[in-house]
């Protein structure tokens, strides 16, 4: 038997808006995190491939900071949905893959004194390496934005 209560229609509408707002906020938190990680990853690869030697050497710290921040914040994200969670796993796997490819490019193809043409390739590699993170951020932003 359903329980009776004195919930007014106005209060019910407010609760619906509040409850649905929490789902949207969860999406936005995911989007903010992935956007920040995309910016950091792109900066890391640009500095690693194009920066002067002292900056290039210290860019590794940016990568370490990125990994530590990700490891700290990702488990604390309050993810509501199964698809949302699965998408995050897929994007993490894709990001690891593109990062490995970028690292191989840096180790075996990238010259010590790159010409301007190599700079174009470096920018492309930096963008591709970080692209999965941007993809995830845009997906998460688009969902609440359309509502």
């Amino acid at each position: 038997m359903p329980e009776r209560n004195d919930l007014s229609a106005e209060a019910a509408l407010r609760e619906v808006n509040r409850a649905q707002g929490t789902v949207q906020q969860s999406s936005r938190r995911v989007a903010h995190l992935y956007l920040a990680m995309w910016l950091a990853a792109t900066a890391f690869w640009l500095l690693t491939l194009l920066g002067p030697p002292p900056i290039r050497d210290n860019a590794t710290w940016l990568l370490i900071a990125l990994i530590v921040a990700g490891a700290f914040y990702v488990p604390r994200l309050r993810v509501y949905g199964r698809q949302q969670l699965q998408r995050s796993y897929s994007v993490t796997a894709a990001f690891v893959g593109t990062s490995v490819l970028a690292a191989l490019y840096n180790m075996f193809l990238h010259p010590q004194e790159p010409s301007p043409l190599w700079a174009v390739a470096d920018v492309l590699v930096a963008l591709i390496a970080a692209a999965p993170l941007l993809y995830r951020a845009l997906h998460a932003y688009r969902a609440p934005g359309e509502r």
Partner: protein
Amino acid sequence: MSHPRHGLDEIIHAPVRLSIMAMLAAADTVEFRFLKDEIEVSDSLLSKHIQTLEKAGYVLVEKAFVGKRPRTWLSLTDEGRDAFQGYMAVLRQITGEPRAPEVAAPLDRQE
């Protein structure tokens, strides 16, 4: 002529169950823990309300492992989605609020 409030689905029109239905209407699936944290109720109370919704055929409960952790996922059935949309239509009729698009499609489907 009867007042539109008589058309409110009493299974949905209860504080905890309304919150559950509203969140499920905004996403394809929602994890039990997320619901518990956002609605701020105990595991047992939430389970009780979910059982009521499940018995009514409004909610589908699925248990699965993510890694080694067991998780419980909830989603609206087609019947549940129709019931919630009907409930919202009655609410808006009572309050005179125009139809809002936000319950039309879940976030996960839009993604």
